[in-house]
């Protein structure tokens, strides 16, 4: 068998072991045979390379359907991030603009309200009422000190207390009244909060014509709003107080006149104005005693 035939059989894959051994010996002993073998190998490699290139070129013309954006990893990450973002945004909006849910949560802890009747004599001509959801007023004594147009605090709320509709008081004495700081219970956690009013205060209270003590506003304290640390909002006949208030006692005074109504917050020995005709969250603005008196006088 000539070496050309052996080489051909080799590249056809039909070489037997004996023939392979023979070809190996021939190539080692004769460089010409080795060169011919290498030459044939170059040709066949070239043919294989050519064919491979043709097939690849054909495959490259195949149109691969584009993966939908949501099918790609980038798309999935984007959609996932968007969904998470939307959830957070939704949650944030719910927290910011839906305090009612928190109200319900807070309402579960019903406050204990103790109230005591003040000397109540209803004046038919009186138009102003003071609402006192959480009040205990002692009117046993009477003093001569009085301040024109003063308002006697008759309402007390704590962070734990609210909705005290059962405590309605009527105050009627035609003498000027003066705001009286309530005697707050020793502990903020004390469920019973008393407001002690001395006789002088009683007189002052009664200076408003026919003051009625009613409970119309539900008060809710919201402490988890970073944005609002000392703010309020009046909505749906509810007062939302934003802030921790040092976990202390605050009081809400509602003064009802014939045609208008004013509400004040008493906290840390200061009075703050509560505007009822704003639904937005507003900062609590301090008002001094004189201004408070003027407001009350204006209500009469």
């Amino acid at each position, binding site marked *: 068998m000539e070496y050309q035939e052996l080489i051909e059989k080799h*590249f056809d894959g039909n070489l037997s072991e004996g023939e392979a051994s023979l070809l190996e010996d021939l190539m080692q002993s004769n*460089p010409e045979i080795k*060169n011919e073998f290498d*030459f*044939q190998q*170059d*040709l*066949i*490699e*070239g*043919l*294989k*390379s*050519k*064919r*491979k290139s*043709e*097939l*690849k070129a*054909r*495959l490259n013309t*195949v*149109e*691969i*359907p584009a*993966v939908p954006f949501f099918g790609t990893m980038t798309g999935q990450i984007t959609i996932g991030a968007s969904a998470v973002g939307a959830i957070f945004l939704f949650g944030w909006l719910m927290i910011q603009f839906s305090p009612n849910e928190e109200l319900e949560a807070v309402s579960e802890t019903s406050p204990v309200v103790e109230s005591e009747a003040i000397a109540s004599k209803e004046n038919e001509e009186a138009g102003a009422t003071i609402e006192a959801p959480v009040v205990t007023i002692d009117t046993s004594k009477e003093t001569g000190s009085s301040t024109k147009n003063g308002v006697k605090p008759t309402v007390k709320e704590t962070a734990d207390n609210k909705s005290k509709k059962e405590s309605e008081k009527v105050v009627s004495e035609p003498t000027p009244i003066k705001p009286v700081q309530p005697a707050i219970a020793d502990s903020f956690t004390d469920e019973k909060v008393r407001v002690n009013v001395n006789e002088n205060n009683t007189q002052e209270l009664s200076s408003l014509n026919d003051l009625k003590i009613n409970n119309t506003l539900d008060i809710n304290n919201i402490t988890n709003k970073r944005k609002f640390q000392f703010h309020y909002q009046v909505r749906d006949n509810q007062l939302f107080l934003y802030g921790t208030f040092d976990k202390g006692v605050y009081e809400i005074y509602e003064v009802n006149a014939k045609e208008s109504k004013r509400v004040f917050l008493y906290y840390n020995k200061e009075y703050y104005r509560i505007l009822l005709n704003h639904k937005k969250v507003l900062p609590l603005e301090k008002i001094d005693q004189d201004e408070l008196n003027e407001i009350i006088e204006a209500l009469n």
Partner: protein
Amino acid sequence: MKEAELFERIKKGDEDALEVIYKKYYRMMTKLVLSNNGTEEEAKDIYQEALLVFWQKSVSGKLVLTSKISTYIYSICLNLWRKELERKKRHSYEEKDGVQHMDLEAKEKARIVLGCIDQLGDTCKKVLMYYYYDGLSMQDIAEKLGFANTNTAKTKKYKCKKKLDEVVKTQYSKSDFVD
């Protein structure tokens, strides 16, 4: 199209069926490389190489498929990509000078051979490529190219090969590649 039918068509050297498979498994196969530090181009290249291995083995009748086509191709992709990663790792340790010198000579020879193949007629090219790359039998080549019979295919292959030998040898002589 069912997988068995596709495989039968592949075994007969049906290039349209190859395109169908290529399209069908493209995302699945390239994802393997893409998710293992490969580029889109590398992923495509590996998949095409794997698919052509599958093609060669199927057409030459050397493959007895015992799994799904996708499983078989996937395993080839996996092996090829592992080899490629190893090659990349080795590449930085090799002495590039010697390798480059050998590559240049081999590349020049390959360029000459490819040029000579292009000089052949279309039928000659097909006969030789089908025979040496695809591994088609003479009978299949005869059927595929519409020859009268197997002997015609054998004769054609002999003549075409001889012609290529002559053309390449002439070109090698001009480039001093022949002693």
